[in-house]
């Protein structure tokens, strides 16, 4: 299933990108090789340009040697101009490079052509694929430090017996979720810490503890190459995120607005957790039967 979802995302993105670029090419959405006529004032060497009639006009200056229009490519430009500026082939993308092919001084009219723009989406997906590959490594390396911190603290808590006290406290729940795991297995400690961290909205503590739990579940796993029922249950609960406090990111974006969402979030997340547990239990039964 994961394989198909993964392949589906990649294949569909190439197909969609190609289709979108071909349709841009057929409709000439970016005015490639099309002559545009803009009015200008001879005295001030300034004028207004618009991509299609009725658009918000863009102001320009004519440069010194009468070869280019000077248009700053910033956020104030209409969408289509920004798009062309971003995908033009010159190095300097801060200026929209419009080339003047003819100046009619009597009528005060310019004939210009815009920079050619092709394969926008195909370029975009190629670039993003490589960017993300790089980003994934940065993300993992960043995780290394956080993992080290929490794993170190967990080791202390394990040696001091703190985790074992904690497991005893919530063992009834754990036993119901993971009936096949013996009471004295250390994995129960990691699982309960991970769940607690999730409940308190501590995402960066939950991940290292969850990974530790997965590694300990793998030691108990009889088929090392595939996920055990316990792993699937654990993962389903994790992705449904049992939480009592909203995640830190949400507080950062919404500020105090979060407080009235506390109850809806708890209700919705409880519903998703219940669904996760029920579906994992059902899948487990289907697998054994």
């Amino acid at each position: 299933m994961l394989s198909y979802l993964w392949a589906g995302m990649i294949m569909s993105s190439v197909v969609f990108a190609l289709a979108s670029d071909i349709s841009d090419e057929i409709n000439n959405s970016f005015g490639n090789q099309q002559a545009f006529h803009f009015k200008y004032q001879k005295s001030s060497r300034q004028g207004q340009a618009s991509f299609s009639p009725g658009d918000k006009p863009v102001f320009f200056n004519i440069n010194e040697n009468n070869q280019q229009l000077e248009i700053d490519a910033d956020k104030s430009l209409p969408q289509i101009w920004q798009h062309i500026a971003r995908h033009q082939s010159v190095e300097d993308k801060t200026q929209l490079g419009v080339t003047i092919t003819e100046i009619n001084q009597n009528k005060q009219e310019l004939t210009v052509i815009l920079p050619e723009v092709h394969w926008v989406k195909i370029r975009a997906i190629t670039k993003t694929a490589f960017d993300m590959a790089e980003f994934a490594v940065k993300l993992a390396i960043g995780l290394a430090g956080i993992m080290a911190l929490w794993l170190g603290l967990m080791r202390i808590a394990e040696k001091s017996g703190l985790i074992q006290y904690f497991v005893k406290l919530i063992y009834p729940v754990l036993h119901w979720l993971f009936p096949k795991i013996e009471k004295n297995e250390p994995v129960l400690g990691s699982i309960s810490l991970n769940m607690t961290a999730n409940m308190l909205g501590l995402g960066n503590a939950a991940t290292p503890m969850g990974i530790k739990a997965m590694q300990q579940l793998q030691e108990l796993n009889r088929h090392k190459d595939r996920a055990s029922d316990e792993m699937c249950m654990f993962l389903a609960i994790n992705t449904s995120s049992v939480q009592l406090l909203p995640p830190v990111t949400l507080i950062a974006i919404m500020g105090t607005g979060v407080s009235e969402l506390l109850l809806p979030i708890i209700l919705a997340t409880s519903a998703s957790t219940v669904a996760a547990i029920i579906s994992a239990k059902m899948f487990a039964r289907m697998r054994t039967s």
Partner: protein
Amino acid sequence: MSYSVLVIPVLIFLIIGFGLIKKVAVYDEFVDGAKEGFSTAVRIIPYLVAMLFAIAMFRASGAMESIITMISPLFELVGIPPEVLPMAIIRPLTGSGSVGVLAELMAQYGQDSIIVKIAATMFGSTETTLYVLAVYFGAINVSKTGYALQAGLIADFTGFIAATAVCLVMFS
């Protein structure tokens, strides 16, 4: 709300304090435990690359938007505002992407709109399923993930329906 900043420092204090009481060699044990951090992080790199690049291509190609436009009439039919659909689709895929969607919705509709409330509840009530899957199974080098993905997506879907229903009942 601001009490939540206390949780981590207090937790660290308790763990180390309890360790000292129980005469654990805290520094040695910390370093010993922390050693695993780096190797685990390196082990998940291939899984993260596989997942993140596929998701990023999917978004950048416009395929996701097309799918959203295709299925949004279905959602309108059952009374879910179609504006929240991007959040429902992107939430299981990427964390940063869903933050972006939420920020966009806030800029467009304002913090007090029902759309932002539903989207924020969706954001708060589920996790980035595919990321968690890649990291957790990557750490143990398992690529046959069984029914974990299915169960996770069922949970997400239930969460979205519940978020919408609860917000519609409470806020309108």
